[in-house]
């Protein structure tokens, strides 16, 4: 994807959606890479014993995808300043997730061209399980 410039961005604009198809295998891979080995993310019996329907996706992995939707869009000259998310609902491997984001603000502060984004991690029923926000600094054409 090419570079996006501050002048190209307007409030209300949607950025490209990121689709993810998580598997239990990916949760094990993430456990290894992140060091978070909490059993609810890959041990079905343990998860069920904890009153969960089965293994659930690490919140931090969903947070990574909320970051990815932004870094994929902002290009190599974009700088991520802030990223936050809340885990409101659980997501399970085997169910696709869609990460969407929309520009909700633009400003210039201290010589930086800042763009605010509202991000939504949704399940395949369209329920927002993982809302978030980001602030990025974009280059200017000028």
């Amino acid at each position: 994807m090419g570079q996006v410039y501050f002048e190209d961005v307007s409030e209300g604009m949607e950025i490209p959606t990121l689709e993810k198809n998580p598997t239990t295998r990916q949760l094990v891979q993430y456990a290894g890479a992140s060091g978070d080995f909490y059993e609810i993310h890959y041990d079905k019996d343990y998860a069920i014993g904890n009153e969960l329907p089965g293994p659930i996706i690490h919140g931090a992995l969903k947070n990574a995808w909320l970051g990815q939707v932004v870094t994929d869009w902002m290009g190599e000259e974009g700088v991520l300043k802030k990223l936050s998310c809340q885990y409101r609902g659980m997501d399970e491997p085997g169910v696709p997730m869609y990460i969407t984001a929309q520009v909700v603000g633009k400003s210039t502060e201290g010589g930086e061209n800042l763009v605010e984004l509202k991000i939504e991690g949704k399940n395949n029923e369209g329920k927002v399980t993982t809302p978030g926000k980001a602030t990025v600094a974009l280059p200017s054409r000028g």
Partner: protein
Amino acid sequence: MSEAIYESMSKDLGKATTPITYDVEKGHVKRFAEAIGDENRLWRGVTVPPTFTRAFIPSDEDESQPRPPGIRVLDAGSEYEYFKAIQPGDRITVVSKIAEVFKKEGRLGTMTFQVKEISFTNQNGDLVATRRDTGIYY
């Protein structure tokens, strides 16, 4: 039980962990990027994905060890702020401080919320990022 969790955790308010330092290894960054399914070229030797600091676990939270039975934990969310890029070869020192402990009554009884403020400082003493994590214990 869950009220006891609150009583016990509120004693930890303000406590900070012993600093722990991690090397940012290129191969680790690549494995992390593969695990999250992010093929961005920048995560192959230039810098790190936005949530890579998850792998820099504060000294009090060894997630590779089993948790004590009887306490359940849910991750409620995180807020990252970035000040400087992290690059392979950097040495990052992590300190986590317990900033807030409060309780709420919910479907699962008394739920204890704990907010940790985590700082990430590089080998030059520059604060590169911070993260606020909210966890729910019940």
